[in-house]
Protein backbone atom coordinates (compact mmCIF):
# COMPACT_ATOMS: atom_id res chain seq x y z
CA UNK A 1 0.00 0.00 0.00
CA UNK A 2 1.31 3.34 -0.95
CA UNK A 3 0.56 4.26 2.57
CA UNK A 4 3.84 5.40 4.00
CA UNK A 5 4.36 4.05 7.47
CA UNK A 6 5.10 7.55 8.69
CA UNK A 7 3.98 7.11 12.22
CA UNK A 8 2.76 10.63 12.66
CA UNK A 9 3.02 10.72 16.43
CA UNK A 10 -0.26 11.81 17.74
CA UNK A 11 -0.64 12.18 21.42
CA UNK A 12 1.32 10.91 24.36
CA UNK A 13 -1.27 9.51 26.64
CA UNK A 14 -0.74 10.19 30.29
CA UNK A 15 -3.00 7.21 30.91
CA UNK A 16 -0.49 4.40 31.59
CA UNK A 17 -2.29 1.93 29.36
CA UNK A 18 -1.26 3.91 26.24
CA UNK A 19 2.38 4.71 27.17
CA UNK A 20 3.71 3.87 23.62
CA UNK A 21 3.06 6.45 20.84
CA UNK A 22 -0.24 5.60 19.19
CA UNK A 23 -0.96 6.75 15.64
CA UNK A 24 -4.54 7.67 14.67
CA UNK A 25 -4.36 4.76 12.21
CA UNK A 26 -3.55 2.38 15.08
CA UNK A 27 -6.43 3.81 17.14
CA UNK A 28 -8.81 3.35 14.22
CA UNK A 29 -7.70 -0.25 13.66
CA UNK A 30 -8.20 -1.03 17.38
CA UNK A 31 -11.61 0.72 17.29
CA UNK A 32 -12.74 -1.35 14.30
CA UNK A 33 -11.72 -4.60 16.00
CA UNK A 34 -13.38 -3.52 19.29
CA UNK A 35 -16.57 -2.50 17.44
CA UNK A 36 -16.70 -5.87 15.67
CA UNK A 37 -16.21 -7.70 18.99
CA UNK A 38 -18.92 -5.65 20.70
CA UNK A 39 -21.36 -6.41 17.87
CA UNK A 40 -20.68 -10.15 18.02
CA UNK A 41 -20.38 -10.59 21.81
CA UNK A 42 -23.60 -11.61 23.64
CA UNK A 43 -22.76 -9.44 26.66
CA UNK A 44 -21.11 -6.10 27.41
CA UNK A 45 -17.35 -6.07 26.90
CA UNK A 46 -15.03 -3.73 28.85
CA UNK A 47 -15.53 -0.14 27.68
CA UNK A 48 -13.20 1.38 25.07
CA UNK A 49 -14.78 4.85 25.17
CA UNK A 50 -11.31 6.51 25.17
CA UNK A 51 -10.87 5.21 21.59
CA UNK A 52 -14.21 6.82 20.72
CA UNK A 53 -13.16 10.12 22.32
CA UNK A 54 -9.83 10.15 20.44
CA UNK A 55 -11.57 9.49 17.11
CA UNK A 56 -14.24 12.14 17.79
CA UNK A 57 -11.36 14.61 18.39
CA UNK A 58 -9.77 13.52 15.13
CA UNK A 59 -13.07 14.08 13.27
CA UNK A 60 -13.46 17.51 14.88
CA UNK A 61 -9.90 18.51 13.89
CA UNK A 62 -10.27 17.24 10.34
CA UNK A 63 -13.64 19.02 9.92
CA UNK A 64 -12.03 22.30 10.98
CA UNK A 65 -9.23 21.70 8.43
CA UNK A 66 -11.76 21.13 5.67
CA UNK A 67 -13.70 24.22 6.75
CA UNK A 68 -10.57 26.32 6.23
CA UNK A 69 -9.99 24.97 2.73
CA UNK A 70 -10.98 27.51 0.06
CA UNK A 71 -11.48 25.15 -2.88
CA UNK A 72 -13.97 22.67 -1.44
CA UNK A 73 -14.41 20.83 -4.68
CA UNK A 74 -11.16 18.94 -4.94
CA UNK A 75 -11.01 15.17 -4.73
CA UNK A 76 -9.13 15.14 -1.44
CA UNK A 77 -11.94 17.04 0.28
CA UNK A 78 -14.47 14.42 -0.80
CA UNK A 79 -12.15 11.59 0.28
CA UNK A 80 -11.68 13.22 3.69
CA UNK A 81 -15.45 13.77 4.02
CA UNK A 82 -16.29 10.14 3.24
CA UNK A 83 -13.66 8.93 5.71
CA UNK A 84 -15.12 11.16 8.42
CA UNK A 85 -18.54 9.66 7.71
CA UNK A 86 -17.09 6.16 7.97
CA UNK A 87 -15.38 6.86 11.29
CA UNK A 88 -18.51 8.66 12.51
CA UNK A 89 -20.49 5.54 11.68
CA UNK A 90 -18.13 3.16 13.55
CA UNK A 91 -18.07 5.29 16.70
CA UNK A 92 -21.85 5.91 16.75
CA UNK A 93 -22.67 2.27 15.92
CA UNK A 94 -20.32 1.08 18.70
CA UNK A 95 -21.91 3.39 21.26
CA UNK A 96 -25.45 2.53 20.12
CA UNK A 97 -24.68 -1.19 20.43
CA UNK A 98 -23.42 -0.73 24.01
CA UNK A 99 -26.41 1.43 24.98
CA UNK A 100 -28.70 -1.28 23.60
CA UNK A 101 -26.99 -3.87 25.83
CA UNK A 102 -27.14 -1.60 28.90
CA UNK A 103 -30.82 -0.87 28.29
CA UNK A 104 -31.68 -4.58 27.92
CA UNK A 105 -30.55 -5.14 31.52
CA UNK A 106 -29.29 -2.00 33.33
CA UNK A 107 -29.12 -3.51 36.84
CA UNK A 108 -27.06 -6.44 35.61
CA UNK A 109 -24.63 -4.06 33.85
CA UNK A 110 -24.25 -1.97 37.03
CA UNK A 111 -23.65 -5.03 39.23
CA UNK A 112 -21.16 -6.52 36.76
CA UNK A 113 -19.30 -3.18 36.68
CA UNK A 114 -19.03 -3.06 40.48
CA UNK A 115 -17.94 -6.72 40.64
CA UNK A 116 -15.14 -6.10 38.12
CA UNK A 117 -14.04 -3.01 40.07
CA UNK A 118 -13.71 -5.10 43.22
CA UNK A 119 -11.74 -7.74 41.33
CA UNK A 120 -9.47 -4.95 40.04
CA UNK A 121 -10.34 -5.73 36.41
CA UNK A 122 -10.64 -3.02 33.70
CA UNK A 123 -13.83 -0.95 33.73
CA UNK A 124 -16.91 -2.47 32.19
CA UNK A 125 -18.68 0.90 31.84
CA UNK A 126 -17.28 4.37 31.29
CA UNK A 127 -18.31 7.15 33.65
CA UNK A 128 -21.04 8.46 31.32
CA UNK A 129 -22.19 4.89 30.53
CA UNK A 130 -22.49 4.20 34.26
CA UNK A 131 -24.50 7.41 34.75
CA UNK A 132 -26.71 6.44 31.78
CA UNK A 133 -27.27 2.94 33.21
CA UNK A 134 -28.28 4.28 36.62
CA UNK A 135 -30.63 6.93 35.20
CA UNK A 136 -32.17 4.45 32.78
CA UNK A 137 -32.61 1.82 35.52
CA UNK A 138 -34.41 4.45 37.62
CA UNK A 139 -36.67 5.50 34.73
CA UNK A 140 -37.50 1.87 34.00
CA UNK A 141 -38.31 0.98 37.58
CA UNK A 142 -40.44 4.16 37.89
CA UNK A 143 -42.44 2.93 34.92
CA UNK A 144 -42.96 -0.57 36.33
CA UNK A 145 -43.69 0.88 39.72
CA UNK A 146 -46.41 3.22 38.51
CA UNK A 147 -48.10 0.77 36.16
CA UNK A 148 -47.88 -2.62 37.93
CA UNK A 149 -45.97 -2.98 41.19
CA UNK A 150 -47.76 -0.14 43.00
CA UNK A 151 -51.02 -2.10 42.79
CA UNK A 152 -49.46 -5.37 43.99
CA UNK A 153 -50.06 -6.72 47.47
CA UNK A 154 -47.00 -6.22 49.73
CA UNK A 155 -45.42 -9.63 49.08
CA UNK A 156 -45.46 -9.15 45.33
CA UNK A 157 -44.09 -5.61 45.27
CA UNK A 158 -40.47 -6.77 44.77
CA UNK A 159 -39.28 -8.13 41.42
CA UNK A 160 -36.07 -10.22 41.22
CA UNK A 161 -33.51 -8.73 38.77
CA UNK A 162 -33.12 -11.24 35.91
CA UNK A 163 -29.47 -12.38 35.57
CA UNK A 164 -28.08 -12.55 32.04
CA UNK A 165 -27.00 -16.14 31.45
CA UNK A 166 -24.47 -16.17 28.70
CA UNK A 167 -22.71 -19.40 29.40
CA UNK A 168 -24.49 -21.44 26.76
CA UNK A 169 -24.11 -18.85 23.96
CA UNK A 170 -21.89 -20.07 21.09
CA UNK A 171 -19.73 -17.62 19.16
CA UNK A 172 -17.46 -17.75 16.11
CA UNK A 173 -13.96 -16.86 17.29
CA UNK A 174 -10.84 -16.34 15.23
CA UNK A 175 -7.44 -16.51 16.93
CA UNK A 176 -5.54 -13.37 15.96
CA UNK A 177 -2.35 -13.45 18.00
CA UNK A 178 0.32 -16.15 18.23
CA UNK A 179 0.92 -17.74 21.63
CA UNK A 180 -2.65 -17.87 22.87
CA UNK A 181 -2.20 -21.28 24.48
CA UNK A 182 -5.08 -23.50 25.48
CA UNK A 183 -8.70 -22.98 26.36
CA UNK A 184 -11.04 -25.09 28.46
CA UNK A 185 -14.58 -25.88 27.34
CA UNK A 186 -17.25 -27.82 29.27
CA UNK A 187 -17.13 -31.52 28.48
CA UNK A 188 -20.64 -32.68 27.64
CA UNK A 189 -19.52 -36.31 28.11
CA UNK A 190 -18.93 -35.95 31.81
CA UNK A 191 -20.51 -32.85 33.29
CA UNK A 192 -17.85 -31.78 35.77
CA UNK A 193 -14.95 -32.53 33.44
CA UNK A 194 -13.39 -30.16 30.92
CA UNK A 195 -11.91 -30.51 27.48
CA UNK A 196 -8.72 -28.64 26.71
CA UNK A 197 -8.39 -27.10 23.25
CA UNK A 198 -5.27 -25.84 21.56
CA UNK A 199 -5.73 -22.41 19.97
CA UNK A 200 -3.40 -22.24 16.93
CA UNK A 201 -3.04 -18.81 15.31
CA UNK A 202 -5.45 -18.02 12.45
CA UNK A 203 -7.74 -20.92 13.44
CA UNK A 204 -11.49 -20.31 13.71
CA UNK A 205 -13.74 -21.97 16.24
CA UNK A 206 -17.44 -22.28 17.03
CA UNK A 207 -17.07 -22.23 20.80
CA UNK A 208 -18.99 -21.24 23.98
CA UNK A 209 -18.43 -17.55 24.65
CA UNK A 210 -17.45 -17.91 28.30
CA UNK A 211 -14.48 -20.11 27.35
CA UNK A 212 -12.91 -17.36 25.29
CA UNK A 213 -14.37 -14.34 27.15
CA UNK A 214 -11.03 -13.41 28.73
CA UNK A 215 -9.08 -13.90 25.50
CA UNK A 216 -11.49 -11.57 23.69
CA UNK A 217 -11.00 -8.94 26.39
CA UNK A 218 -7.23 -9.28 26.05
CA UNK A 219 -7.55 -8.77 22.30
CA UNK A 220 -6.11 -12.16 21.34
CA UNK A 221 -9.34 -13.40 19.76
CA UNK A 222 -11.52 -11.63 17.20
CA UNK A 223 -15.21 -12.53 17.28
CA UNK A 224 -16.93 -12.97 13.87
Amino acid at each position, binding site marked *: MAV*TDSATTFLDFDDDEYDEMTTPEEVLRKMTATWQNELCAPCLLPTQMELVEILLDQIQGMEENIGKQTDKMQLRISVHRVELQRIGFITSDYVRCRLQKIESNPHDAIDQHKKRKEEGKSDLLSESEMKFAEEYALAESNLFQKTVLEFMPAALKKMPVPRGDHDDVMVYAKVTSDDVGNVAIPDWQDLNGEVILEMEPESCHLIPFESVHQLVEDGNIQLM
Partner: protein
Amino acid sequence: MNAERCEFIAGNSLIEVIPSISDDRPIHLISGDIGPFEAGVPCRIPVWTAILMKRKHNCKVVAPQWMDVDELKKILTSETESQGLAKLPDHFFEISHMLVRDAREDIFEVEAVKSLVQDIYDRRDAKLRSSAIEFLRQNQTCHAQLDNVQLIEASSARATLEACRQMGAVVRNKHESTPL
Protein backbone atom coordinates in the same frame (compact mmCIF):
# COMPACT_ATOMS: atom_id res chain seq x y z
CA MET B 1 -22.98 -7.69 12.54
CA ASN B 2 -24.68 -8.18 9.18
CA ALA B 3 -23.75 -8.31 5.49
CA GLU B 4 -23.96 -4.51 5.22
CA ARG B 5 -21.39 -4.08 8.00
CA CYS B 6 -19.21 -6.83 6.51
CA GLU B 7 -19.13 -4.88 3.25
CA PHE B 8 -18.30 -1.74 5.24
CA ILE B 9 -15.34 -3.46 6.93
CA ALA B 10 -14.27 -4.97 3.61
CA GLY B 11 -14.07 -1.39 2.32
CA ASN B 12 -10.88 -0.96 4.36
CA SER B 13 -8.97 -3.69 2.47
CA LEU B 14 -6.49 -2.44 -0.13
CA ILE B 15 -6.86 -2.72 -3.88
CA GLU B 16 -4.84 -1.57 -6.87
CA VAL B 17 -6.09 1.24 -9.10
CA ILE B 18 -4.73 3.20 -12.02
CA PRO B 19 -5.52 6.89 -11.36
CA SER B 20 -6.31 9.14 -14.33
CA ILE B 21 -5.32 12.28 -12.39
CA SER B 22 -1.99 13.37 -10.93
CA ASP B 23 -1.55 14.92 -7.50
CA ASP B 24 1.89 15.05 -5.92
CA ARG B 25 0.56 15.75 -2.42
CA PRO B 26 -0.55 12.55 -0.66
CA ILE B 27 -3.93 12.66 1.13
CA HIS B 28 -3.28 12.39 4.88
CA LEU B 29 -6.29 10.38 5.99
CA ILE B 30 -6.85 9.41 9.62
CA SER B 31 -6.53 5.79 8.48
CA GLY B 32 -3.14 6.58 6.94
CA ASP B 33 -1.79 8.37 3.88
CA ILE B 34 -2.92 7.55 0.34
CA GLY B 35 -1.35 8.74 -2.88
CA PRO B 36 0.44 10.71 -4.18
CA PHE B 37 -1.20 9.86 -7.49
CA GLU B 38 0.48 9.85 -10.86
CA ALA B 39 -1.82 9.39 -13.86
CA GLY B 40 -1.30 5.93 -15.32
CA VAL B 41 0.90 4.67 -12.46
CA PRO B 42 -0.88 1.91 -10.46
CA CYS B 43 -1.08 2.38 -6.68
CA ARG B 44 -2.88 0.63 -3.81
CA ILE B 45 -5.68 2.37 -1.90
CA PRO B 46 -8.61 1.20 0.25
CA VAL B 47 -11.57 -0.22 -1.68
CA TRP B 48 -13.93 2.51 -0.43
CA THR B 49 -11.61 5.20 -1.82
CA ALA B 50 -11.25 3.30 -5.10
CA ILE B 51 -15.04 3.20 -5.54
CA LEU B 52 -15.34 6.89 -4.63
CA MET B 53 -12.69 7.83 -7.24
CA LYS B 54 -14.23 5.45 -9.80
CA ARG B 55 -17.60 7.21 -9.48
CA LYS B 56 -15.84 10.52 -10.14
CA HIS B 57 -14.15 9.08 -13.26
CA ASN B 58 -10.77 9.63 -11.54
CA CYS B 59 -9.41 6.09 -11.80
CA LYS B 60 -9.74 2.61 -13.24
CA VAL B 61 -9.84 -0.32 -10.81
CA VAL B 62 -7.39 -3.19 -11.32
CA ALA B 63 -9.34 -6.33 -10.44
CA PRO B 64 -7.47 -8.41 -7.82
CA GLN B 65 -5.61 -11.32 -9.44
CA TRP B 66 -8.00 -13.81 -7.83
CA MET B 67 -10.91 -12.09 -9.55
CA ASP B 68 -10.24 -13.72 -12.89
CA VAL B 69 -12.27 -16.48 -14.52
CA ASP B 70 -9.57 -19.17 -14.57
CA GLU B 71 -8.44 -18.38 -11.02
CA LEU B 72 -12.04 -18.56 -9.80
CA LYS B 73 -12.54 -21.87 -11.59
CA LYS B 74 -9.52 -23.23 -9.69
CA ILE B 75 -11.01 -22.05 -6.41
CA LEU B 76 -14.34 -23.60 -7.28
CA THR B 77 -12.79 -27.00 -8.02
CA SER B 78 -10.68 -26.91 -4.83
CA GLU B 79 -13.84 -25.98 -2.93
CA THR B 80 -15.75 -28.91 -4.42
CA GLU B 81 -13.00 -31.42 -3.74
CA SER B 82 -12.01 -30.48 -0.17
CA GLN B 83 -14.12 -31.48 2.84
CA GLY B 84 -13.49 -28.35 4.88
CA LEU B 85 -13.60 -24.75 3.64
CA ALA B 86 -10.83 -23.74 1.27
CA LYS B 87 -8.68 -20.71 2.15
CA LEU B 88 -10.01 -17.59 0.45
CA PRO B 89 -8.59 -14.06 0.37
CA ASP B 90 -10.11 -11.86 3.10
CA HIS B 91 -13.53 -10.36 2.30
CA PHE B 92 -13.58 -12.41 -0.93
CA PHE B 93 -17.34 -12.14 -1.41
CA GLU B 94 -17.79 -8.53 -0.29
CA ILE B 95 -15.00 -7.16 -2.49
CA SER B 96 -16.17 -9.05 -5.59
CA HIS B 97 -19.75 -7.88 -4.91
CA MET B 98 -18.65 -4.24 -4.59
CA LEU B 99 -16.47 -4.27 -7.70
CA VAL B 100 -19.09 -6.00 -9.86
CA ARG B 101 -21.58 -3.34 -8.75
CA ASP B 102 -19.43 -0.20 -8.90
CA ALA B 103 -16.50 -0.94 -11.23
CA ARG B 104 -18.29 -3.15 -13.75
CA GLU B 105 -16.39 -2.01 -16.85
CA ASP B 106 -12.98 -2.68 -15.26
CA ILE B 107 -13.62 -6.41 -14.72
CA PHE B 108 -12.92 -8.76 -17.59
CA GLU B 109 -15.93 -10.99 -18.34
CA VAL B 110 -17.81 -9.51 -15.41
CA GLU B 111 -20.80 -11.80 -15.94
CA ALA B 112 -18.72 -15.01 -15.74
CA VAL B 113 -16.91 -13.68 -12.64
CA LYS B 114 -20.25 -12.88 -11.00
CA SER B 115 -21.70 -16.36 -11.51
CA LEU B 116 -18.47 -18.14 -10.47
CA VAL B 117 -18.32 -16.20 -7.20
CA GLN B 118 -21.99 -17.09 -6.63
CA ASP B 119 -21.22 -20.80 -7.23
CA ILE B 120 -18.33 -20.69 -4.75
CA TYR B 121 -20.61 -19.04 -2.16
CA ASP B 122 -23.34 -21.65 -2.67
CA ARG B 123 -20.85 -24.54 -2.42
CA ARG B 124 -19.44 -23.24 0.89
CA ASP B 125 -22.88 -22.34 2.21
CA ALA B 126 -24.03 -25.93 1.64
CA LYS B 127 -21.02 -27.22 3.60
CA LEU B 128 -21.60 -24.79 6.47
CA ARG B 129 -25.30 -25.64 6.61
CA SER B 130 -24.79 -29.40 6.76
CA SER B 131 -22.03 -29.13 9.40
CA ALA B 132 -24.25 -26.78 11.48
CA ILE B 133 -27.15 -29.28 11.43
CA GLU B 134 -24.81 -32.08 12.38
CA PHE B 135 -23.33 -29.96 15.18
CA LEU B 136 -26.73 -29.05 16.60
CA ARG B 137 -27.96 -32.64 16.43
CA GLN B 138 -25.08 -34.15 18.41
CA ASN B 139 -24.40 -33.55 22.10
CA GLN B 140 -20.86 -34.96 22.38
CA THR B 141 -19.02 -31.66 22.11
CA CYS B 142 -19.85 -27.98 22.21
CA HIS B 143 -16.99 -26.99 19.91
CA ALA B 144 -16.35 -27.15 16.16
CA GLN B 145 -13.26 -26.03 14.34
CA LEU B 146 -13.92 -24.43 10.94
CA ASP B 147 -10.84 -22.60 9.73
CA ASN B 148 -11.06 -20.28 6.72
CA VAL B 149 -14.68 -19.33 7.46
CA GLN B 150 -15.34 -15.83 6.06
CA LEU B 151 -16.70 -13.05 8.26
CA ILE B 152 -19.82 -12.77 6.12
CA GLU B 153 -20.47 -16.51 6.41
CA ALA B 154 -20.06 -16.41 10.20
CA SER B 155 -22.46 -13.46 10.50
CA SER B 156 -25.17 -15.21 8.47
CA ALA B 157 -24.61 -18.50 10.37
CA ARG B 158 -24.89 -16.63 13.70
CA ALA B 159 -28.50 -15.78 12.90
CA THR B 160 -29.35 -19.50 12.62
CA LEU B 161 -27.40 -20.27 15.80
CA GLU B 162 -29.28 -17.56 17.68
CA ALA B 163 -32.58 -18.94 16.40
CA CYS B 164 -31.67 -22.43 17.65
CA ARG B 165 -30.72 -21.00 21.04
CA GLN B 166 -34.07 -19.21 21.33
CA MET B 167 -35.84 -22.40 20.33
CA GLY B 168 -34.03 -24.13 23.22
CA ALA B 169 -35.08 -21.34 25.59
CA VAL B 170 -38.74 -21.56 24.51
CA VAL B 171 -38.73 -25.32 24.98
CA ARG B 172 -37.11 -24.96 28.44
CA ASN B 173 -39.63 -22.24 29.30
CA LYS B 174 -42.49 -24.54 28.32
CA HIS B 175 -41.29 -27.16 30.78
CA GLU B 176 -40.83 -24.67 33.60
CA SER B 177 -44.15 -22.90 33.23
CA THR B 178 -46.28 -26.02 32.80
CA PRO B 179 -48.75 -26.04 35.73
CA LEU B 180 -47.59 -28.14 38.71
